[in-house]
């Protein structure tokens, strides 16, 4: 008698899932190496790379000086001559010190060289607030990077995506930025023991619903799912879409969803002005206007540098209550 195979599930965390992805990539491809501040002996500032130095040695788990521009640029240089570097930047705020290399080199070399040079580089960094680390360690600037042609921008919000996006990004011939929300590193759950590469470039419906489409990504996905549960108790059946890839945006999945729900709220931990939420809302207005029964709602961070005290930080960020209120407003409830 044959039984259908039982999928083995393992317990893991977001942090461990990324570490497993790095581990697998390093084993599979000798061109892959990890480089960044404190990735080796310290084990990574968020402990993502803990233990990898012992496994792979200092050549491939490479501690760098605090020279974001030089080591990101070095990642680009190594990538264009055949390596597959993973560069870790501690937080998105620090990535601003490497903005020149990311925007002026990584994003442009293919184009400026008439297609001769591609940059198969992965840059990982932490983003977002919620740890009371104030205005120089808490911002969500991924929307800025999503503005730049030539870059791909990913925001894994689930264990599967934490486990699977890195491998796919490494196989991409383009520079790919992966934004890991700081509050997700400790998130635990079960995933398939053989979880691996996932498709990028597509949004995912994380909760199907009929009445309103709530669009989120990264750290706000879980707050949005919570909001959807609250709304359900009030008789509003919310669909939650996880953008997953911030560039290129999967507009088709969003349009398909609002074609069914006729209402949309965009949730973004970035500030409202000139934000990714603005881009999503504009696309829905441009291409989905006739599907909509109400103006598009937005829930963003309050336009203030993220403050240190807990109550002010919480007030600055999108929270389930604000998402619920925004959904109710577009539903005119």
């Amino acid at each position: 008698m044959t039984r259908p195979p039982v999928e083995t599930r393992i317990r893991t965390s977001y942090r461990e899932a990324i570490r497993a992805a790095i581990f697998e990539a390093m084993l599979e491809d000798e061109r892959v190496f990890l480089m960044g501040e404190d990735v080796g002996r310290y084990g990574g500032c968020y402990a993502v790379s803990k233990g990898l130095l012992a496994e792979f040695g200092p050549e491939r788990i490479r501690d760098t000086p605090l020279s974001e521009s030089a080591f990101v640029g070095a990642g680009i240089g190594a990538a264009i001559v055949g390596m597959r570097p993973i560069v870790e930047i501690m937080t998105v705020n620090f990535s601003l010190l490497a903005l020149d290399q990311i925007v002026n080199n990584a994003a442009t070399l293919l184009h400026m060289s008439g297609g001769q040079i591609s940059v198969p580089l992965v840059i990982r960094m932490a983003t977002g607030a919620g740890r009371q680390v104030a205005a120089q360690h808490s911002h969500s600037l991924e929307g800025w990077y999503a503005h730049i042609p030539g870059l791909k921008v990913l925001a894994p919000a689930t264990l599967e995506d934490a486990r699977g996006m890195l491998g796919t990004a490494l196989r991409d011939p383009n520079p790919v930025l992966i934004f890991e929300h700081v509050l997700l590193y400790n998130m635990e759950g079960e995933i398939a023991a053989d979880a691996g590469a996932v498709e990028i470039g597509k949004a995912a419906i994380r909760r199907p619903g009929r009445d309103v489409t709530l669009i989120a990504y990264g750290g706000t996905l879980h707050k949005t799912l919570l909001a959807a549960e609250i709304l359900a108790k009030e008789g509003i059946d919310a669909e939650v879409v996880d953008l997953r890839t911030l560039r290129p945006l999967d507009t088709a999945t969003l349009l398909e969803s609002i074609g069914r729900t006729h209402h949309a709220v965009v949730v973004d931990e970035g500030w409202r002005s000139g934000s990714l939420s603005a881009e999503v809302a504009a696309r829905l207005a441009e291409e989905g206007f006739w599907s909509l029964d109400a103006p598009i709602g937005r829930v963003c961070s309050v336009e203030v540098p993220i403050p240190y005290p807990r109550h002010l930080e919480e007030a600055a960020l999108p929270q389930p209550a604000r998402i619920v209120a925004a959904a109710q407003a577009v539903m005119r409830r």
Partner: protein
Amino acid sequence: MTGSADLKPHLARSHVMDLMRQMLRIRRFEEKCIELYATERIRGFLHVYIGEEAVAVGALPTLTPDDAVVATYREHGQALIRGVPMNAIMAEMYGKQEGCSGGRGGSMHIFDVAHRFYGGNAIVGGGLPLAVGMALADKMCNRRRVTACFFGDGAVAEGEFHESLNLAAVWKLPILFVCENNLYAMGTALELTESETDLHLKAQSYRISSVAVDGMDVVAVEAAARRATAAIRAGEGPQFLECRTYRFRAHSAFDPELYRSKTEVEEWKKRGPIERFGAWAEANAILHPTDFAALEQEVAAEIEAAVAFAESGNWEPVETLTRGVYAEVAP
């Protein structure tokens, strides 16, 4: 360093002739470019190397075809000497499809991977981290290659310069830093912007072996570059050359040159690399007036052909505008 004979330039007639030919190729090519700029065949920014030819001509032939070059927006000279065909460079200046970068880059973004010429970087200092990464990859893969990275004195003020020198030294990378010190960062004199104007000392502070050479003397540059590349190949880590040179022309076509005197420019022109080397070669009866005439004729023919090539080139159709933003497959 050793003073062994093979590290010294051999000034046989053929070599002298070649150095002269290469400097003339840059000089006459760029003089033609200035003309073409005036007649609006070339647009955008045009930064010429005239006066600085000895640096590229002295340094680059010490590399092998397997080595790599990273340069700046003033890179026509390096590209020509590296072997990028003049036709493809001129077509790039025109913005034609037949240009070495498909016309997408122009004067400041000359790329030719076949000749391991990696730009054409128009952010001052922006090429140094790239060169560090290329050299890192070579070291990690045990490839015995040198990456030569050219930049101006202006780059020395950038954080990327210091970060890159430090990384190259810490990781002992096979990289040749060539600082083309022409005394002005665009229009601001070095002494107004640097507390230490003896730039090669900065490299020494990172424990990089460095030397300052007369960048107007092609033989001095070649000798220094030979020693430096030999040291890199011997596993001695990064080397730094400060080539003291001078830009005879304006920074770009938009520069009215308010920041320096005509007398200063004229003084430097007396030390012109072509003028001085030519006079020496003639005085020593290595080259003769007929040789110069023959070289001029040869170079003129090459330039004429390059202009014809660029003129007859094609504009990329607008339909392919969004091509080349994302790669489909890694090369």
